[in-house]
């Protein structure tokens, strides 16, 4: 606590009276006395793991992203207008009237057996060949991330993740006080040689590595896909070092060209936990995801899940089930794919036309393009300027547990129309141009990336759920 540098005295002083006014005397009940107030009487009670859960400037800047004037290339919200909402509505009404006593009741901790059966069909293209009993249904795959981390990670354990990595997973790892170590990626995903080198280094340092967290298909935020030839190598390296692979695959079915590549799980079912989700292929509002895990792991996941939430929502699970049963969901996924392909094309076209000095990845599916700014610009420092120009993105630093990613940003193309995307990129290009001008004025890249003393770069907080 900072010592006040003034003259600490006269706590009970009632204040002088200026002419024609009055000064409110501190009220006995209201005056906080010499101890001062921190506005939170429970401050000393919080667990150590909540350190760093603070208000943040960056998060506050995203508040404008919901205004219609702003082109938000920040959010990862699926484009739900493409869903047949009338069909979904009818199915939900029937669900309550015909099966309400089950749908509105507690359910099994592991998840509805019929849904688990159907999930097998959904995972078939990725060649996840499992038994319904290997599946644990969770409240979005985000809860599966939480449960896996909960049962494996002690404070100080290492989780190896791609550089960059999914911001929502980094939040979970931080909450369990894991030490995240990033491994570089290139256009073909995680680099096996880098992974091996990192694991060797960690072993030599005596560190305990518990998980390799990876998003192999249409990575969030990097937009790249792990090449087929690398998949067995990644699995082999992990096995050799005794590291469990956590394969997060929400975008696997949203590839724009051809069939999905075989999952890592299909290459080593005993060494991989596979996470899936209906959030991107159906609707995130139901919060239904799942984990496929080796049976002993699955047992613990179920117990951990019951301890956390008793059971996932029966209503949501049966709603998803009836949608899978009564609707051509594969066709619907195709509708989403076509829509997102068009938007991806709009994004890449606009970048090429309007911001050619930047560099970016070419996603073959999913929602995101990962952009490197020209001139070493700091995407986080530039965000207020973007907000003024009515365009929003997520600065790259959000996707790292360390200080990397300053000159990168993530653009999401899933929600805005192609016309809006182009307008957003046009605004972004203007923002980049002005920021470059200011940077040039103040000495180019001299001292770049070194925060001004007394103004340290604050740890970037996770954006809200609509942005992850």
């Amino acid at each position, binding site marked *: 606590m900072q010592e006040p540098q003034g003259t600490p005295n006269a706590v009970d002083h009632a*204040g002088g009276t200026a002419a024609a006014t009055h000064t409110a005397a501190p009220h006995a009940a209201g005056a906080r006395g010499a101890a001062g107030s921190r506005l939170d009487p429970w401050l000393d009670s919080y667990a150590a793991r909540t350190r760093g859960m603070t208000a943040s400037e960056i998060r506050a800047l995203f508040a404008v992203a919901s205004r219609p004037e702003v082109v938000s290339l920040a959010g990862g919200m699926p484009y739900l207008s493409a869903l047949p909402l009338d069909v979904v509505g009818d199915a939900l009404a029937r669900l309550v009237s015909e099966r309400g006593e089950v749908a509105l009741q507690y359910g099994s901790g592991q998840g509805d057996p019929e849904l688990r059966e159907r999930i097998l069909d959904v995972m078939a293209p990725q060649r996840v060949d499992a038994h319904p009993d290997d599946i644990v249904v969770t409240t979005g795959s985000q809860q599966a991330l939480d449960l896996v981390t909960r049962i494996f990670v002690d404070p100080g354990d290492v989780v190896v993740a791609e550089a960059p990595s999914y911001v929502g997973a980094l939040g979970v790892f931080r909450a369990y006080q894991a030490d995240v170590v990033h491994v570089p990626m290139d256009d073909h995903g995680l680099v096996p040689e880098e992974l091996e080198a990192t694991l060797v280094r960690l072993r030599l340092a005596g560190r305990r590595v518990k998980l390799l967290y990876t998003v192999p298909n249409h990575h969030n935020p990097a937009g790249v896909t792990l090449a087929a030839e690398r998949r067995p190598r990644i699995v082999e390296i992990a096995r050799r070092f005794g590291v469990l692979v956590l394969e997060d695959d929400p975008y696997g079915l949203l590839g724009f060209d051809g069939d999905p590549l075989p999952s890592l799980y299909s290459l080593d079912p005993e060494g991989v936990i596979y996470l899936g989700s209906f959030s991107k292929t159906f609707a995130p509002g139901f919060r239904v995801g799942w984990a496929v895990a080796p049976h002993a792991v699955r047992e613990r996941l179920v117990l951990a899940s019951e301890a956390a939430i008793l059971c996932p929502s029966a209503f949501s699970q049966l709603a998803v089930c009836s949608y899978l049963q009564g609707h051509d969901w594969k066709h619907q996924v195709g509708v989403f794919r076509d829509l997102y392909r068009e938007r991806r094309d709009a994004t890449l076209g606009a970048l090429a036309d309007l911001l050619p000095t930047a560099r970016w990845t070419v996603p073959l599916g999913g929602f995101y393009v990962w952009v490197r700014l020209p001139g070493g610009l700091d995407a986080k420092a530039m965000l207020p300027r973007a907000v003024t120009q009515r365009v929003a993105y997520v600065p790259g630093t959000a996707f790292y547990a360390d200080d990397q990613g300053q000159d990168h940003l993530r653009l999401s193309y899933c929600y805005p129309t192609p016309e809006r995307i182009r307008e957003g990129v046009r605004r972004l290009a203007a923002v980049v141009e002005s920021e470059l001008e200011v940077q040039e004025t*103040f000495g180019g890249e001299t001292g770049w990336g070194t925060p001004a003393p007394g103004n340290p770069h604050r740890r970037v907080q996770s954006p809200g759920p609509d942005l992850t």
Partner: protein
Amino acid sequence: MNEWLSPRVLVLAGGLSHERDVSLRSGRRVADALKDAGCNVDVRDVDEQLLDVVRSDRIDVVWPLLHGASGEDGAVRDVLELVGVPYVGSSARSCRLSWSKPVAKGVARDAGLATPAFVALPHGTFRELGASRVLSAIVDRLGLPLVVKPASGGSALGASAVRTADALPRAMVDCFAYGDVALVERHVTGVEVAVSVVELPDGPLVLPPVEIAPDGGLYDYDARYTAGATTFYCPARLTPETMDAVTTMALTAHRAFGLRHVSRTDLIVDPSGQPWFLEVNVAPGMTETSLLPQSVEAAGLTPGTVYRRLVEAAAGTNRSHSVTLS
């Protein structure tokens, strides 16, 4: 005036500024307090439907709690005056004076208040004259440490404390991301104090000053809006003489700017006990961690009661406020 048992208040919160989030929080907080005090309250954002709603007969008083541009630069208030609806807070003209920190510092100086030496420059000046030359002229004249902040706007967004000349370029870049004009000011070391003034029927009331002691020493955005990141002393731990000096400063500022209903003056008390005027706020933050609500409670008053009296004062004073298009 309709049915004063339950005045109908429209709280404006949100807007498109960098401080949208703060404004939304302030709006919710004030609305809750007013409801507890028996007012009929709606909260809404600024959009194309706003004027239709304001013009309808269903609103007695508007309370603009918009922070940042258009909320605090007077623009929205000009429009409220055009349509002749009473609102809580200062006139558009007063807002314009306080919104620009360089202008405000001039007004304060003319009113006899001490304010740290400063210079306010647009980006273009640095580009045309050469940033290093201009920056070294600034350091030669004002010395170190310095504070760099956008010439307008609140919540410490884009503001940095600079202790060495090498840190200055980065601070300038961070600042220009928020606006085209930067204010560079001599950093007065001392105790940060905020003094709020509310106008109740029996005259302006200076509320107990709040002393701000952020954990990290810097009252930045995180320190402002994370409960627990800052220790507040209310009343501030000042000698009787200094207490007099800071309350007088707040009241002098309130009058010099022609402020109405509510204001908050931010200042620093140096080790000799001298207060230095930094800025005055026409739409002080009203969030859970903001300063004015703490002062209200420290005075033994209920926020809802105070806010309701401000609403009543607004309804009484400017229902037929003359339109000034200045």
